[in-house]
């Protein structure tokens, strides 16, 4: 079906059930929705719908289902894997106008939210009760809770406080045909299969969510950050293992390599040690006594593991300053280079030295620079490849570079995505991580929820044909058959 045939039908049908201002048809109105945070992938959606209520979402779904039109849901569009890239013949459903905090219940320690509520707003709404919402992706000022559910988003405090899946209690929404569905809730561990767990991180392929109930937890009264410098990456990696071995689970445990600290330092003036091959940021939180005990112990472990300079935050302002560099790693990359490409593999922690060394060799091979920030506590690596999209062939090289890093992650027992999702971006890498039988199982899940394949089609699971094609390219030594052709 050509896009031109679909547009008038679907737009007319949607206008019949939705207020006119909810349906955007003009190209200039649709343009802002053509991509998410992965800007290399762009598609103009046939229609954009901006529902304001549960019922308007339902009507949108029923209309799309009746006319067999694909539908892609979008939160704030900060995703990094193309999960919200529109379908050219489909509807883009933006949750931007569904951004009310419906309830904060300090006794049950929960918040009920519409999907468009920005992540940080949840903690702000709960702050008066001494509570907060734990997952804190770097984009938390903007990213929406609905998007977090779709991607099972993480952040820098996952080791101790978990990912979205550990902090969402319930979802309400609709299946593809507009049937109301409710998963989880305040009562834990309900009957039947854990559809809540299956839905979180399903990238908009299974359901459309209209309400999210999250767990709120008490804000620790005190937090302190220890920064340590290491002369080599392997020692920093060993220090991470040594901290875990003491029985401490730090609130956060982050690593940056020299290239990353050099990139952010001029930007934030945090006082990072630019001589160090790697720096570790280790945060302790809890009661003041507990934090004091933990910080002393962490310092001792870091010293024994060969740390050079050690710095402990003496104030909340200093703690936030030391964090600011880590949190600004991506914008800093944007200052260093016209374009950057952020990867998201996870590895067993013990392999960090080996992986960073291999990435160093790949930099030479691909002729591109790569800086590394690492959620060291949970093994989630974010290599940031710097490139210039205007230089012919450069994006293709960056893309291959990234794919090779992910293949290494898989070979070492890790995964191609720790928190950014597969979307469109990592479809090829899915062929490396999963066997045909495993991918068939994913399609089976998809069909059980969405037999017509209308919700975010073409994302998350690569087809057999696509993997066969990718396999053939692989045989040719990693070099693309037609490096000059735009592939997306």
């Amino acid at each position: 079906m050509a896009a031109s045939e679909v547009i008038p039908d679907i737009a007319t049908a949607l206008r019949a059930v939705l207020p006119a201002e909810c349906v955007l048809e003009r190209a200039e109105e649709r343009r802002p929705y053509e991509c998410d945070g992965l800007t290399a992938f762009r598609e103009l959606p046939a229609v954009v719908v901006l529902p304001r209520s549960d019922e308007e979402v339902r009507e949108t779904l029923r209309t799309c289902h009746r006319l067999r039109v694909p539908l892609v849901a979008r939160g704030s569009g900060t995703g990094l894997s193309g999960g919200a890239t529109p379908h050219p013949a489909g509807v883009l459903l933006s949750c931007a106008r569904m951004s009310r905090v419906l309830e904060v219940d300090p006794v049950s320690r929960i918040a009920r939210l519409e999907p468009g509520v920005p992540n940080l707003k949840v903690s702000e709404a709960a702050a008066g009760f001494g509570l907060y919402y734990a997952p804190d992706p770097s984009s938390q000022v903007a990213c929406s809770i609905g998007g977090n559910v779709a991607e099972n988003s993480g952040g820098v405090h996952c080791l101790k406080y978990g990912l979205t899946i550990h902090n969402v209690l319930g979802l309400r929404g609709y299946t593809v045909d507009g049937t109301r569905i409710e998963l989880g809730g305040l009562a834990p561990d309900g009957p039947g299969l854990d559809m809540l767990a299956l839905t979180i991180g399903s990238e908009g392929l299974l359901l459309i969510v209209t309400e999210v109930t999250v767990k709120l937890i008490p804000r620790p009264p005190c937090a302190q950050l220890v920064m340590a410098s290491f002369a080599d990456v392997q020692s920093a990696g060993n220090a991470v293992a040594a901290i875990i071995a003491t029985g401490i689970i730090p609130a956060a445990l982050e690593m940056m390599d020299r290239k990353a600290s050099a990139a952010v330092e001029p930007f934030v003036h945090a006082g990072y040690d630019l001589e160090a091959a790697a720096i570790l940021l280790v945060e302790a939180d809890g009661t003041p006594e507990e934090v004091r005990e933990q910080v002393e112990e962490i310092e001792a472990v870091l010293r024994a593991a060969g740390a050079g300079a050690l710095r402990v935050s003496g104030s909340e302002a200093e703690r936030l300053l030391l964090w600011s560099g880590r949190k600004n790693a991506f914008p800093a990359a944007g200052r260093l280079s016209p374009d950057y490409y952020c990867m998201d593999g996870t590895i067993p922690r013990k392999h960090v030295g080996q992986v960073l060394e291999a990435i160093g060799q790949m930099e030479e091979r691909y002729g591109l620079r790569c800086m590394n920030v690492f959620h060291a506590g949970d093994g989630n690596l974010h290599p940031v490849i710097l490139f210039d999209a205007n230089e012919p062939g450069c994006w293709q090289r960056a893309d291959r570079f990234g794919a090779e890093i992910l293949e290494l992650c898989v070979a070492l027992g890790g995964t191609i995505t720790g928190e950014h999702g597969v979307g469109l971006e990592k479809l090829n890498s899915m062929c490396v991580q999963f066997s045909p039988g495993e991918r068939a199982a994913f399609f089976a899940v998809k069909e059980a929820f969405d037999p017509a394949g209308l919700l975010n089609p073409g994302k998350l699971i690569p087809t057999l044909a696509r993997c066969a094609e990718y396999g053939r390219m692989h045989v040719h030594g990693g070099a693309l058959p037609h490096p000059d052709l735009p592939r997306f």
Partner: protein
Amino acid sequence: MMADESVLEGWRERIADAARAGVPLRLRGAGTKDFYGEGLAGEVLDLRAWRGIVDYEPSELVITVRCGTSLSEVEAALAARGQLLAFEPPALGADPSLGGVVAAGLSGPRRMFAGAARDFVLGTRLLTAQGELLRFGGQVMKNVAGFDVSRLLCGSLGILGVITEVSLKVLPRPRLEETLCLELSAAEAVAAFNRWAGLPLPLSGAAWSQGRAWVRLSGAPAAVRAAREQIGGDPAAAAVAAGFWSALRHCQLPLFAAEGIWRLSLPPATPPLALPGEPLIDWGGALRWYANPPDGVAVRAVAERAGGTAQCWRGAPTGTRFHPLPSALATLHRRLKERFDPRGVFNPGRLIHGL
């Protein structure tokens, strides 16, 4: 002792035979949960032969075990390195297998504070109806590649296939653990549990039984000491405390001697329910056990009105054992089952009647 690969080969044959003959398989580990679920059907496929710890690296906080490995073996290995399974799976009989622990997905007293069984599942291997061995998730904490089938399998009671291997996140043992006892009514206890849960206290258990609230604190010594001051009550002797939490976890308190037992899952702040008899309360108010309620239908209605569900744990159920599913959800279950196990080989009717 590690098993050899021929074990899985044998299972593949049994699965193929079962599909051909139309005689389903009843997946079974140590059999400690034979009572659990809607009913048993089919020929037993004993899963204990596929056993052993495949990989355990304490500094990675992950253990990978085959399904037939006993819980006691896993807990001993973890204890030797100062770690534990933080969801405290119950042993409802001699010594369950880890495959059974994950397939049932049950969690103990730490559930509301540390997380549920499924929160600790990082990866699984699944032997499917087609005889394929599939791997979902992995051995790393953060992993969003593909649908989270591993966590879907946790609590699936084997209806989607044989869980042959699991990787679980483990945690360090708390440095210090203390239990406080307070004489409170059920209403006072539920209110207090929810108040304390909103404060930065190192809670790891909050239960109430026969007029007494039991509050467990686990963590850094400084934090435990500070919390003790805040909560008050009387510290329980270490052996008494250990005995109580173990009996609560493994369903061995006196209430569990009853013939009929109902297990209610509720929003934690739910005030005491209008049901006859005194419950045993766990999970800070979210889990309530009732012995021999006269009317199961009423139990289910009361739980539902409170926003929860009720399960007939032991004894004769009224209708189904598990709380019935809304129809939209039941449809999704049916469609998933049809796709994973089209011939109905695995544990038919165990999780849901007729499925």
